[in-house]
């Protein structure tokens, strides 16, 4: 059962917050801030769970999601999509493109952590 997570997000404060929460839970946290090179980062890191922001410089999270689902190695990768645009249209698009989970900002730390654990196949609330 791996505990490697990759966070693709460009807001430094949010990176810091999520990294702290996941690190405290015992996760091996990798981060990447540029959308344009995100896909390569995923293939390089090959995380157990991917946390992907939508509004990214260089390439949008939706495009990255589409590419990942098209690639054989990442077709089944659990992906949590984060977006600051919480409209239903964005949720529909996320589902259609194959996001495993969809979460609107601002979220609670506990919610994010629970989702990531679920996606990794870990029991809820289990200590790391």
């Amino acid at each position, binding site marked *: 059962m791996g505990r490697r997570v990759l966070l693709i997000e460009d807001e430094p*404060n949010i990176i810091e917050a999520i990294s702290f929460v996941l690190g405290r839970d015992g996760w091996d946290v990798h981060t990447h801030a540029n959308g344009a090179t995100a896909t390569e980062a995923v293939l390089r890191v090959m995380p157990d769970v991917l946390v992907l922001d939508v509004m990214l410089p260089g390439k949008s999270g939706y495009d990255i999601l589409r590419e990942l689902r098209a690639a054989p190695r990442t077709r089944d990768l659990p992906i949590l999509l984060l977006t600051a645009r919480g409209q239903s249209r964005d949720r529909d698009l996320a589902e259609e493109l194959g996001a495993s989970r969809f979460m609107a900002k601002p979220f609670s730390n506990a919610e994010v952590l629970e989702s990531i654990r679920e996606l990794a196949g870990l029991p809820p609330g289990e200590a790391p």
Partner: protein
Amino acid sequence: MVSFDLLIAVCLAYVAFLFLIAFVADSRARQGRFGWLRSPLIYTLSLSIYCTAWTFYGAVGYAARSGLEFITIYLGPTLVMAGWWVVLRKLVHIGRSQRITSIADLISSRYGKSNLLGVIVTLMAVIGTTPYIALQLQSVTLSFAVFSEPAPAGAPPDINATAIWVAAGLALFTILFGTRNLDANERHHGVVIAIAVEAVVKLVALVAVGVFVIWGLGGGAGDILARIDASPISAWELQPGRWFSLIFLSAAAFLTLPRMFQVMVVENGDERHLITASWAFPLYLLLMSLFVVPIAAMGLTLLPAESNPDLFVLTLPLSQGREGLAMFAFLGGFSSATSMVIVAAIALSTMVSNHVVMPIWLATAGHGATKSGDVRKMVLRARRLSIAAILGLGYAYFRFSGGGAALAAIGLISFAGVAQVLPAMLGGLFWRGATRRGALAGLIAGFAVWAYTLFLPSFGGGVILPQGVLDNGPWGIGWLRPQALFGIEGIDPVIHAVLWSMLLNVVSFCLVSLLSFPGPLERLQGAQFVNVFEHSPQARGWQAGGSEAEDLLVMAQRIMGPEQAQALFRAEASAQGKAGYLPDPSPEFLQCLERELAGSVGSATAHAMVGQIVGGASVSVPDLMAVANETAQMMEYSSQLEARSRQLARTARQLREANRKLTELSIQKDAFLSQISHELRTPMTSIRAFSEILREGRELAPETRERYCAIIHDETLRLTRLLDDLLDLGVLQNGQVELSLEPVELAAVLDRALAATGVQQGGEHLRIVRDPAAERVIVETDGDRLAQVFINLISNAAKYCDSTAPELRIKVQRRAGEVEIDFIDNGPGISERDQAVIFEKFARLGDYRSAGGAGLGLAICREIMARLGGSIVYLPGQGGAAFRVSLTLPGERGEKRSGQKAVSSRRRPRRKQAAG
């Protein structure tokens, strides 16, 4: 001996009888029960008005004087009838299809509806017919005199008094017969029937006298032939020139005499009657002429030498005591005279009223509001007066010509006169090149020569032409002598006149026609006349009346649509008591149809179309003008429609454009909301996440806790800034912004802005290059707002200029009432594509990384500058990013006061701007 009173009584009874017949026929015709009224026999008999008192009495006299020459008078018409296919068929067809009312109307209509021609032909006809009417007066007067001669009083009755009574009686008779009502198509069924009866009476009377002469007086045919051989008649010799001339003359007169035209063309009810008449009428003439020579021969042998041969028909029975037969013969002669006078007077009165009186009456002012009833009354009055006047003229001629000339001679003068119309008529029917001017020239030339060489001399020397002119020519010019024109002497005056008048007539007609150019209406009418059978190949007139109705239906269907047209026709047909769809084309129905059609195609066009089919194909110039007007109106209407549809297309385009803009705005609004959502949620996410971490509070190092608190604080500020910007932009865009305008120095504003951004001149991170001398400019503006713009530009430079030694130059320059402040950094600049959108809301370029602002900065700057009456633009081509802020200067004094602050006298009260 028959008493004079009895004679009058018989005449009156006979006239009453004719009147009764005419009355019956008229009423039958009015009820539409034509029956035998429209038989070819009636038509043929009505043609017999050709045989007037001249033929009845005069032929015998003619034969007694000139032998068989009288035959020429019958041969001309016989030839015309035998060759009916050539001329008569066309003449009758045109007359019917064009609704021709008289020979004057025919000529006028053919040559472009020229009323001048109508007037001239009318005058010629009146003048030409006058001797003829005089001839009838003379014959009736003579016949009265024959009965009165042995009157007990012994003194011969005043022949002139008799003539005037006869003229008055005939006038009354004609007025009663011919102008009882006004028929639209100038048909007189009653008159025609009366004429037919008279035709029978005169034929039977003449035959009776002939039979009496041959078998009563003489010993049968053989005896008569012997007597003829013995009489001077047998000494007669054929003169080819005279024969040819007389045959031509009688043929021409047969076609052109107004009364012949009346019965042959105007009164014609069916063109097929011509087929019967073509053999039956020559037969009638043959019967009329059969006994002429025997009567003449018997008269010459039995009666005293001084007897008038013109009266042999009466005097022969009288001399034998056969008063009954004589009375019958008298009635025959009376019939001949009356029928001729009636029809001639009707025909002439039609011409006079239509071509002379009515145009004058209509031309005189004051008839604008004329009702049709007034016109009818007017026309009837004009015709009655014309009839009286025509008979008056006949009487005058009778008086002035002395009343002594032979009947035949008077008849020939008349013939020669009316024959002048022949070239114009035949030319009009067969030659498209014939023109109005040609017809005028021919008619005037021919008629003038006729009047000069035949008509005027017929009064005898001294009456109109002095004897000297007759003998030596006018002014003694010999070759202008009326009866020896151009020095040609020794030929019969009639032949002489016919030769010259016809020659000059034909030559003038042809020459002038060739030299003149016909007008459009003339050409149109010319084509319709000459090509009348080509225009209607199925020869409409030869079929039953239904074909007109059918044509009308076909046309109406095309214009009104089949259902409506059929409904209209069916309703009319059933109103007329007929089944099916084809009603009689009565005037009322045609009017109604015209109105219906006018709703679709305009009244003038409808009139022309109906006219074309019903046969009155007389499309006048006003008609054509009206059609043209309507067409112009329709064209204008359609061009209006076109313009309107263009306008509609334009409106549709504008609507599409507006819709596109609205859609774009809607998309922009969505994008804006989405952007705001993102801008708000991002700092809120950080705040929430860190505040949750802090709340849990476990094992956090104090410096970490400190750091997270700082992040929360910064993000709160960021949110506040965003909200401020949003509110600011909203206020600016709604125009609900308060500006405090006052004179401020540019340098001071820049100082304030630099202080606010924390970037100081010569600072480490971003180097600011300024030009203090140029900055000493006073501007009349809201210093706070202007500083806000400058702050934005300086912050942007600080954020985005990533050169190794970032530098921002602030240049101030004055230009034509404006001051320009340029902010130029040495960074990478902004791509051309992005330059177009940087002033839009949330137009953060390239990447989404927040650089402190929410992407509303430049949008706010633009709004502020618009409110301040200046502008902010991107300045391309400066190496780095470059913005130019322009402000209007308050005036020249501003510079002088540089350094002074807030001059109280120049301070303006705060004012609220409510610009849109």
